[in-house]
Each structure stands twice: as C-alpha cells, then as structure tokens.
C-alpha cells in the first residue's frame, strides 16, 4: 500500500477493523484543538454535534455499514461556508451571531458521507487577504512556528522571550483550515480559493491544497467573494486524500447554476511509474520578481526530477501573467461591491441602532460591520463600475481576462499536459514583518503565482515539496487542464512520492504509533 494513502488505507482501514472508533478519533481531535488553541485556527468548535455525529458513525461501523471512506472522519470547514445551526461569521463583525439556517452543499455532502464536522476555521475577513491576519478574531499562527524544524533554525533570542514574536503566518485566506490540517486537529478541511486562498496557506503550512476547476464543485452556501472565480478548496495531508474529498464533493448541483452538468465519476489515483508520456510546461513568466532564490532552485530541481524520469519538460510562455493581478484587482473589487450589497442589517447579521432612515441605517450598519479592507474593496469596486469608468476599467479587465485564459489554452493546445510553477514567492513571513505592508499590497504580491488559475478557471494544486533554510514548508504548484483533475492529481501524487516531504515535529502533539494521525517520514527532497 502506498505510504501516502492516509484516509483510504490507514484511517478508514483502522476504523473498519475497529482498531480505533469514530468517537475516539473525534475526542482526540477535540483534545488537540484545545491544546493547540494558541494557533487560533478555529473560530467555532462544534463539540456536541461532532460527538453526536461520531456516535452515529460508530453505530454504522458496528452494523458493518459505513457510508464510505469519509464515515467518521473529523473535518473542519472554513467559516465562510454556511453550516446549519452553527455560527458562520466570515471573521467579520457583520456576521457575528449569524446562525446559518442551512448547510452549504459541500458541507451537506460531507455530512451525507458521514464526516464529522469539528468546527469552523479562521480566515481573513470575508476571505479578503493573503495572511489570515485580518479577521476580527485575530490572526492564525502557522503550526510550523512551533515545530522542531523551525525552532532549530531560529536565531536564539534572549532566554526570557519565547517564540511569541517569531511566529510566522499561515498565509491566506484559508489559513485556519490549513493550520488545522497541518497540526493534525482534523484530517481534511474545506477552504475557498478566489485568488489563491487555498493554495497559498497550503504552501506555507506544508499541506496539499487543491483548487478544483471552476464549475466542478458547488458554491451554494459559500458566501461569495467573486462569483466568477470562487471555488471551494480542499486541504489535506496527501494527494490521495484530496482525491477522496474531491470524489465526495464534485458534481452538478441544481442549486448552483454555475456547476457543469457533465457526469462526474469519483476516481482512485493510479500509482504512476512511467512519466515518459508526460509533457510538463514551465511558464517562464512565473520566474516573477521577488521569487526567492531558494524556491527558484527547488522549482528547477523539480523540473529536473521530471526530466530525469523521462518526462518531456518544456519552457512555455503565458505572456499576460503579469497583468493577472491588476485584472483581478478590478474584477474582484467590482464583484465584491455587488456581493457585499446584501449586508444591510435587515434580514441577518449586524444591525446598527440608527433609525432615521433605511439608507442611514444601512450606512451605519456597514460602517460598523466591515473592516477597512472590505470597505476599501467595496469603494474601489464601485468606482470601477461608475458609468464613466465602466468601459475603461471593468470591461477592459474582462477583455484582459480573456487574453489570460487564452494564454493557457494555447499552451495546453501545444501538447503540454500539466504546468509546474512555484506557489509562493517565499516561505512564510513572521507576523510582525507581514503586517508592515497593507492588505492590498500584500495580496497583490502574494497572489501573483496563484491568481491566473482562478482567472482562467483551471484546476491547480499545491504539493508540499521541501523545507526552506528557515525550516519552513515550501510548496510547488501544478496547474492542469479544465476538468482534468484526475491527470493533475496523478502527476501531483507522483511528485509527492518523489519528494517525501517531512512530517512536522510538533512537541505538543503526542504521537500515535499506529500512524493513524500522521504519515511515515522518509528522506526529504531538499
């Protein structure tokens, strides 16, 4: 059995054979959540309902009728997905106290497969940001900040101060989900991805982050940021697990008219041994300004890995890459301006005490409920949508979007199967350093390598590759053809096996010898 196949061959097997029960798993995860509270990965922990779900799962296993691989598996969900009966805040004052009346389709699907919903994870407010630092519940801390690997490489400070000032960010906006998976408090988590919000924190936290093709997974119940780019994201500890999650989530949803109607067949990933028929494209524009020499070297090494294994590795060009961020900036703020208009205090969420008029109540509610980042994007978006600016900015951006999407079409048409690029410009920054620049600047910098895939709607995945000199995770990204997740994940899985990314050594986490909570460590790639 493959070393990586966590859910299918390790956890699910253990559950079926009774070596561990769903309630035990759930309790362990809940205890771990408590002991890793300092990470601030969770906004809400749904302890009671989780234990109840675990008990129901246990009954099913006892009867020999589990619902599938996900039955009894503890998972976490980013707090911008609606979860019935559980608070959904989007890390904003605007939705504090909002109890969803329904489950997002992806949440419902997970529950229908027997998964145990542990809680809602932290994010940047309304998923706007690339650090998971700008939510009202505070920033998320990267579990690797507390790893042996990072501490060993840190310059020792004076003995009195602990690692408090040194902790690094998770990246964002799905930082809570990435931290939750990385610190073993759950086996998989849902994130969302509009500009890189699943892949970016996945890279910084050393986990697999999958952005599926736009239209493959339902967005019903995902509080929207940019309707034409948002997708639910999947965060797991190995590529096989991502395929399992994908299998349970993908497919047409009548409640989301932007999901495609094609039949989706869940798949198991083959163990690729022969890559000689594969063509890997290396887009030269992804050698972006600011790319760390470390990551550049890793990227190059990865390309060589494929070449030496017999694959065809070619340099390609995606000439409009550098405009992707500008294009995103206009389209995102425009769609945000529209999407955020629903928050007026009348039907749900925060409501101001102002009573003079509807308009002044709306204005006061929004003034009180949104943070600067959100307000800034709403105002920018409205500016670009003004009659006098509409053609110049919004329509112009839509034209540039087509050029960006066409770049990919041309490259894939030329015979390339999968693109290989870095995911981030560098490893995770210390929090104190990250907050020195404002949110928009950071987002513009950090999304550069991930955004174009959202622009074109293509599937993309971050695979943890190696540790940086600071002892922090670095990942590489694969971008695939539309709706060709099986091919994309097959290549990603092959690569994952080659690099053998090390397991995080967290002193606070007790190891479990049956390997249920983690995978085996082997020689590393770097």
């Amino acid at each position, binding site marked *: 059995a493959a070393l990586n196949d966590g859910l299918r061959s390790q956890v699910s097997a253990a559950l079926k054979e009774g070596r561990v029960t769903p309630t035990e798993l759930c309790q362990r995860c809940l205890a771990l959540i408590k002991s890793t509270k300092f990470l601030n990965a969770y906004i809400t922990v749904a302890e009671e309902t989780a234990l109840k779900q675990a008990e129901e799962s246990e009954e099913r296993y006892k009867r020999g009728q589990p619902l599938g691989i996900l039955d009894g598996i503890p998972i976490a969900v980013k707090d911008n997905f609606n979860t019935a009966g559980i608070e959904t805040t989007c890390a904003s004052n605007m939705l504090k106290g909002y109890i969803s009346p329904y489950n997002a389709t992806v949440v419902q699907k997970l529950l229908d497969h027997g998964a145990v919903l542990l809680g809602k994870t932290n994010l940047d407010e309304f998923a706007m940001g690339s650090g998971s630092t700008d939510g009202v519940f505070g920033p998320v801390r990267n579990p690797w900040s507390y790893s042996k690997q990072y501490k060993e490489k840190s310059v020792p400070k004076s003995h009195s101060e602990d690692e408090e000032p040194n902790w690094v960010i998770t990246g964002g906006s799905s930082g809570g989900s990435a931290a939750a998976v990385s610190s073993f408090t759950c086996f998989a988590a849902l994130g969302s991805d509009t500009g890189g919000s699943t892949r970016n924190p996945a890279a910084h936290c050393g986990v697999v982050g999958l952005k599926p093709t736009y239209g493959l997974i339902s967005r019903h119940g995902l509080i929207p940021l940019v309707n034409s780019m948002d997708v639910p994201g999947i965060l797991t500890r190995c590529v096989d697990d991502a395929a399992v999650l994908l299998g349970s989530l993908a497919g047409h949803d009548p409640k989301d008219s932007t999901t495609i109607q094609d039949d989706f067949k869940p798949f198991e990933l083959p163990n690729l041994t022969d890559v000689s028929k594969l063509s890997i494209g290396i887009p030269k524009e992804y050698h972006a300004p600011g790319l760390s020499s470390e990551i550049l070297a890793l990227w190059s090494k990865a390309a060589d890995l494929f070449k030496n294994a017999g694959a065809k590795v070619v340099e390609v060009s995606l000439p409009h890459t550098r405009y992707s961020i500008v294009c995103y900036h206009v389209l995102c703020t425009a769609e945000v301006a529209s999407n955020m208009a629903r928050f007026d205090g009348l039907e749900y969420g925060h409501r101001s005490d102002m009573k003079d008029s509807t308009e002044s109540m709306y204005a006061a509610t929004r003034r009180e409920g949104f943070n600067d980042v959100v307000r800034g994007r709403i105002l920018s978006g409205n500016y670009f949508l003004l009659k006098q600016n509409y053609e110049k900015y919004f329509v*112009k951006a839509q034209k540039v*979007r087509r*050029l960006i999407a066409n770049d990919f079409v041309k490259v894939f048409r030329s015979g390339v199967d999968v693109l290989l690029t870095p995911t981030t410009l560098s490893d995770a920054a210390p929090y104190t350093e990250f907050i020195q620049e404002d949110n928009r600047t950071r987002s513009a910098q950090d999304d550069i390598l991930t955004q174009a895939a959202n622009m074109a709607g293509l599937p993309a995945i971050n695979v943890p590759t190696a540790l940086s000199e600071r002892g922090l995770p670095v990942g590489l990204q694969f971008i695939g053809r539309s709706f060709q997740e099986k091919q994309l994940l097959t290549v990603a899985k092959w690569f994952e096996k080659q690099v053998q990314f090390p397991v995080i050594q967290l002193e606070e986490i007790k190891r479990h010898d049956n390997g249920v909570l983690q995978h085996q460590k082997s020689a590393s790639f770097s």
Partner: protein
Amino acid sequence: QKVSVEVLDHLEHLALVDFRDSEGVERLQKAIQFADQLHEVNTDGVEPMDSVLEDRCLYLREDDVTEGNCTKELLENAREKVEEYFVAPPGNIPLPKLEERETFLRDS
C-alpha cells in the same frame, strides 16, 4: 489625477460605506493607479469574458416548487421583526447631503 470630492461623495452614496479617513481616500487613489496598468494591454478586437464557462449552456430546471415554507427559519436571524415582516426604518429619505453628513469628506 485626484478623485474629486463630488465623486467620492457619490461613491459613499452608492456604496453606503464611508471613507473613514484620509487613508481610505488614499487607498482608493492607489487602487486606481494600480488598475491603470490595464491600459498597457492591447485588447483590440478582444471580447470581454464574463465567465470561463461561456461555451456551455446554463442549467435551467423545471419551474416546479421544490422547497420553501421556511419563514420561521429565515426570520430567526433578523434583529427587528414584527409577525412575518422584517422591520425597516422609513424609506424614501435620502442620505443627508455632504454638508450635513458625518463624514470625513466634509472637511476635505
């Protein structure tokens, strides 16, 4: 070019969100500057792209009622309601003009 106070005021009306301080206005200025880079790209003859799924037909379902009757659930999250109504303050009253509004723009 700086954005005029008239336009800023207009934006506050449209968005029902305010530029809290000079930083807010600066943020907009920088956003526009950033967006101006788009004009470097030649888009002659290029059609705007609304959706990456533009080559497909949108799913249309039968016009049958399949769900509803959830008034109670929907009202639960509203702060002010009376019977089955959401309660709003009086409408048709425009936001106060710039001179009368409490906004940072008034002093700029």
